[in-house]
């Protein structure tokens, strides 16, 4: 069990999401930074699809009721285990009664806590993710509250003693520190080191329906993430994106990453909890490889969109796969080293 002593602003049970059900109106849910949860599960010896805890902004305090191995990934929340600092992207053993505290993100937005065996809530429609809109999945279909108790599944670390509860802590390099292929320079960004988050985007089905000024503004303007943003979508503020063709669209499928523009001309980037159907024109779509980076962009932060082609999008995804392979290789080498030393 994990005792939720303090839940924090928005903390929920998530895995890699619910898939194949959008035609029934069922959204994806799941970790918004899927890469962070994926690595956290690898760092405790879980299958990558195991459920973990997504912490948004915090502060969140968790107590473990038995010895276990955990990992903390995603944004650096200045975590501590009792009073000992815990690095970000770290795998470590915990003892029964120890308390993990995630204070506030130094950078980024969301942290992930994985535990060997995974959070063992009931799987519904192929996933343990919390669907916060529809109110099912996870723990009671809702965000965690103070006093909740989370069941933990049986760990299978027997084969991998290096990931057992007695093995020491270790970490991996955060993907935020990796360059996944060349990151194009945003046309509008000043050359001097900008703090803006650069997000790679492919033009969407209705891109040509926007005015030349709107098309230019998409790539050249900074886009502020307004506080009226959530797991369904980031509402952005910037210049008005004027659509020349004003015919109403019939309802159509929308996806995480879709950038739609309602009549007010201010774009919305859809996130993991996005509804399955929409009616607004789609000016672009964030490439799959950058969705996790978008998930870590903070409220009031500035986004810069850069146009990329399908080939660039695919290459970026391959780079992420290579990063995951490096993580697995590091885990394997550590295992062999520990076995050799016994």
């Amino acid at each position, binding site marked *: 069990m994990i005792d939720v002593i303090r839940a924090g602003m928005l903390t929920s049970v998530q895995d890699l999401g619910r898939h194949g059900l959008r035609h029934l109106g069922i959204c994806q849910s799941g970790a918004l930074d899927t890469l962070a949860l994926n690595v956290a599960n690898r760092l405790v010896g879980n299958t990558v699809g195991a459920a973990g805890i997504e912490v948004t902004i915090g502060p969140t305090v968790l107590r473990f009721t038995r010895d276990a191995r955990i990992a903390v990934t995603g944004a650096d929340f200045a975590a501590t285990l009792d009073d000992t600092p815990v690095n970000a992207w770290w795998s470590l053993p915990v003892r029964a009664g120890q308390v993990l505290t995630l204070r506030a993100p130094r950078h980024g937005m969301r942290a992930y806590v994985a535990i060997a065996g995974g959070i063992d809530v009931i799987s519904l*429609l192929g996933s343990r993710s919390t669907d916060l809109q529809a109110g099912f999945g996870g723990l009671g279909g809702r965000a965690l509250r103070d006093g909740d108790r989370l069941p933990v599944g049986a760990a299978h670390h027997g084969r991998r003693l290096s990931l057992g509860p007695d093995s020491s802590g270790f970490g991996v390099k955060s993907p935020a520190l990796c360059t996944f292929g060349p990151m194009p320079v945003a046309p509008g960004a000043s050359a001097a080191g900008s703090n803006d988050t650069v997000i790679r985007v492919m033009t969407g089905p209705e891109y040509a329906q926007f005015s030349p000024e709107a098309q230019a503004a998409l790539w050249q303007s900074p886009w502020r993430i307004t506080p009226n943003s959530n797991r369904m979508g980031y509402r952005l503020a910037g210049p008005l994106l004027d659509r020349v063709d004003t015919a109403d669209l*019939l309802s159509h499928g929308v996806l995480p990453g879709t950038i739609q523009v309602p009549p007010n001309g201010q774009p919305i980037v859809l996130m993991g909890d996005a509804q399955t159907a929409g009616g607004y024109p789609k000016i672009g779509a964030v490439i*799959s490889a950058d969705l996790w980076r978008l998930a870590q962009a903070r409220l009031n932060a500035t986004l810069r969109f850069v146009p990329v082609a399908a080939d660039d*999008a695919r290459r970026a995804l391959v780079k992420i796969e290579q990063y995951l392979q490096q993580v697995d290789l590091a885990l394997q080498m550590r295992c062999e080293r520990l076995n050799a030393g016994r």
Partner: protein
Amino acid sequence: MDAVNTLIKPALVALGDNALVCSFAPPATLATQARVWAVARAARDWPHVVEVVPGMNNLTVVYDPLKADPLALTAQLDAAWDEPPEDQAGGNLIEIPVRYGGADGPDLDEVARFCKLTTAEVIARHTAAEYVVFFLGFQPGFAYLGGLDPALHTPRRAEPRIAVPVGSVAIGGEQTGIYPSESPGGWQLIGRSTSVLFDPSRAQPSLLAPGDRVRFTAAGSRA
């Protein structure tokens, strides 16, 4: 089946690095929608396809961007529209009992007033039609139904309700539908059903699927 419609193929464009969208030009027709369902059924079994989402006279096919070959998938999808759909949509006929009026349908009187009908006539017309599930969206199990009697078309409420009770049967403009779970909503509530439209613990979580046909039956009124 409209012979002209079967010859027209949809525009096919990419939505990001993991989806293809097939869109027919308006106006939306049931004949075109039947083709959407047919291609959706076929595409669901293709390798590396992860979602197949019918919209109104359009279809979005989502694929695994690491495993799928987008060019091959585009060609396969394009060719699929050459196949004539079966005459039947292949959907099930589902009866949904409704308690019309009273506390279950607080806007029934308003709909009757707007349509210049008696409440009994509204109920008679609403239960007379056979509706078609064009597609689902908005929330899990929420079906966009075609086939509402034009005499019952009623504008949405000026002020949306903060919480529409689960199972509410409603009219919004030219559409009618059922709220699968409690949610905000601006449609006119004319009744309520005890049918469970969405249950995530069922093997078939949604009572309705694209292509299904629906009939409402009056299950007694509290009016």
